[in-house]
């Protein structure tokens, strides 16, 4: 016989005080997450990248030559392979590739998380408003979402870049966020539509709660887990878009990102000559997006019991 863990535990949880209920619910979900191999692997990978981002501040403190942008080894003025002083080698002007890789992790997190966060905030708010108010507000917001959804983000950012010159990293973050919210808003709207019919919302309405209060106090807590789930997927796509932009020469030239590293290895003609320069940023981009995806998949299973494996 198959038992629904979350249902059975929910009954027990009702007996506990509210704060403890929340902690227990979190612990329960964490247990489910921990049991998921994909989730564990994703989290370990993600922790490694977070560690890389944190360590990125250290190399320039050891020696100015490890500054990812301006530091050059005085003895090396061309691209050389790994050595004691440069574990991953140097680029064509003698900059340390490892320092650049660490700085790239910082940029990847910054771009990925910030743009995903902005797009989730936008998508969740718009989805809740459209779902709750319905009618013409819903129609207008959802048509807007449709229009933006069919626009290819990378192409639009490329057009922006060529029109307004090079975009700085925060403009890139904002543009990515502005083009990635419609997917989230559609899902949140659908969820809001189902929540709207629930008795507790009717009760709140009868009690005289304002629409804003209903959205913030009653609907938002119920759709937030879903938003967070979507955030993990949005992080991956934001990182890929930024890397693609930088690789094509439209990134922020004053920041060292993995896409920028790939652009330099390509444009300076080292693509087939310097694997120690080409491979690390490429592998990092793949792994960080994979790790966010894995965490997202695991979270999906935590939030949706139907996706979990059935144990005998």
């Amino acid at each position: 016989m198959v038992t629904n863990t979350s249902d059975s535990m929910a009954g027990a949880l009702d007996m506990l005080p509210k704060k403890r209920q929340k902690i227990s619910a979190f612990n329960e979900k964490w247990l489910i997450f921990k049991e998921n191999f994909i989730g564990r692997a994703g989290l370990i990978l993600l922790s490694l990248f977070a560690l890389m981002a944190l360590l990125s501040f250290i190399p320039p403190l050891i020696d100015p030559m490890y500054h990812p942008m301006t530091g050059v080894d005085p003895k090396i003025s061309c691209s050389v392979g790994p050595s004691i002083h440069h574990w991953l080698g140097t680029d064509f002007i003698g900059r340390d590739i490892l320092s650049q890789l660490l700085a790239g992790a910082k940029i990847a997190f910054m771009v990925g998380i910030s743009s995903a966060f902005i797009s989730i905030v936008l998508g969740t708010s718009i989805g809740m408003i459209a779902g709750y108010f319905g009618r013409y507000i819903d129609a207008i917001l959802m048509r807007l979402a449709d229009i933006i959804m069919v626009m290819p983000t990378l192409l639009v950012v490329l057009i922006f870049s060529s029109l307004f010159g090079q975009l700085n990293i925060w403009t890139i973050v904002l543009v990515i966020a502005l083009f990635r919210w419609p997917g989230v808003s559609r899902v949140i709207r659908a969820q809001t539509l189902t929540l709207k019919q629930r008795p507790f919302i009717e009760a709140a309405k009868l009690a005289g709660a304002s629409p804003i209060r209903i959205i913030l106090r009653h609907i938002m807590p119920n759709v937030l887990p879903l938003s967070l789930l979507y955030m993990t997927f949005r992080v991956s796509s934001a990182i890929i878009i930024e890397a693609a932009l930088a690789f094509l020469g439209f990134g922020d030239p004053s920041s060292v990102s993995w896409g920028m590293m790939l652009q330099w290895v390509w444009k300076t003609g080292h693509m087939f000559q310097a694997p120690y320069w080409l491979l690390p940023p490429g592998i990092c981009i793949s792994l960080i997006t994979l790790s966010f995806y894995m965490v997202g998949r695991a979270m999906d299973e935590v939030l949706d019991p139907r996706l979990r494996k059935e144990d005998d």
Partner: protein
Amino acid sequence: MKNFLKIKHSTLIAITISIVFCLSCKGENETDILKIGLAEEPRTLNVWLASDANSKKILSQIYQPLYMSEPATQKLIPWLAKEHPVYNPETISYTVTLRKAKWSDGTDLTSKDVVFTANIIKDFRVPLFASKWDFVKKVEIIDKQTVRFYLTKPMAIFLTRTLTGPVVQKKEWEKIVQIAKKKEKPLKTLLNHKIEKPVGSGPFVLKEWRKGSYLYLKKNTYFFGEGIIISGFKLGPFLDAIIFKIFGTSDVAILALKKGTIDMFWKGIQPGYLADLQQNSDIRIFFSEKSALYFMGFNLRKPPFNDINLRRAAAAVIDRNFIVSRILQNYGTKLFSIVPLENKFWCCQDVDHYCESHPRDKRILLAYKTLRNAGYTWKISPVDLDGNIVEGKGIRTPNGKPMERFTILTPPADYDPHRAMSGMIIQEWFRDLGIPAYSRPMSFGSLLQTVKTKHNFEAFILGYGKLSLDPDYVRIFFHSKNDKPRGWNMSGYRNPCFDRLADQSKTTIDPNQRKKLLFKMQKMISRDLPYIPLYTPKLIEAVRKGKFTGWVEMQNGIGNIWSFCMLKPDHHTKKSF
């Protein structure tokens, strides 16, 4: 039956022989076709509009000038002209006699065509050529082979700039010109006219252009130079045809070169490719001097760079050694004057070298002193009380206001990684001084529009990849009359003394006198710094060995008309020996 078999046999043998013959002919033809890789598609084949490098490369095979630079000395020698022009100081006129030449359609190239070409440029004021013809009063036909140019005043650039332009066929352009003249915007009509099969007098003629794929140029059987000796070269062409293949990126073109799909990649190669190419025994690398100027320019029309002290501080912190040794990987030379060092006669070496051999700390110190003495202040000074270099912050201009952040515009890395990287590094050097600089690569077209037309910029890094041997560009770049939208004085430099010298240099015929004037002009620019000259890159080109011989090396590379007239298929060379 026997007879029938005999006939069958002989037919079979005949067919086999003819197939073998056809195949062998095809093989021979194929080896006589030179395959060249181009980085981009030519934008136009209208000679009056073509300003991009790739269009010029194709058109240089088709349209020919009266005079041309010879490979070894770069001296001007007669090309379509038979001999050097004869100057008459009384009438201020030059008489040019033409060689017996034909257009690719078999008609004669005569003085009528030369006069017609001159009239198009003058009547329509064709932007690419007008400034070189302003001082030509009229052009007269003396006889079928002789033409005379009357000038308003003696002009030093007449020979080197005016007579080196292309000559077009009257028959081909006459109708187009007539139609254009009747239109509301004649110049626009002329420039927008699509030329599909240009009639030229060069060694090759366009046979087919498949957009996005290739251009096929066939040998011009009417080429005037075939078999004659010019400047010690017995000219061909010895090739049947040239195919120009279009490649999107250098990587693909270099792979094609390594595989043997193309025989030459007609574009400068990044030093990063060298190690790999040098290991390949089928590839030959050529290193050539370039007559080029890569520089940082400032907008002198507005703050902050209207202050000469800031420009001098900028010149002090820019480390050319770093740029040449690291960014150019030593494939280039440091530049201190506007005229490249390779142009030995005209380059003035006695100009300020702004801390050339100083280490970084000393550069910052000198720049700091220059700025401090001019009244600049800092929140955190880049030089502390003990004289140590620290990160400067919060720079204020002499009027006490914080210096606003500004951008250094550069072309994007996919257009020119050297300039993009130089911009980034210079940005960091400026920041060492607390100057809020931001490097901003932007598409080349937008960059030119911003700098040349809108004048809405603070600083930029640009370059001239093919400067003429005649240094008249020093006058053009900095004369105050060229400080206008679309004018060449992009910095907005205005100096009446310079203008006077520039005007004199234009009309001084004696080279030594003119040299003195140009040296003064170069020193003035070095002192006032509207541009900071940075470097001249070396040109690296690669070709395949074994198929063709006879590449002619000259300044600006092996991709020149001499090479295409001298290249011989390897079997051709072997046969002739």
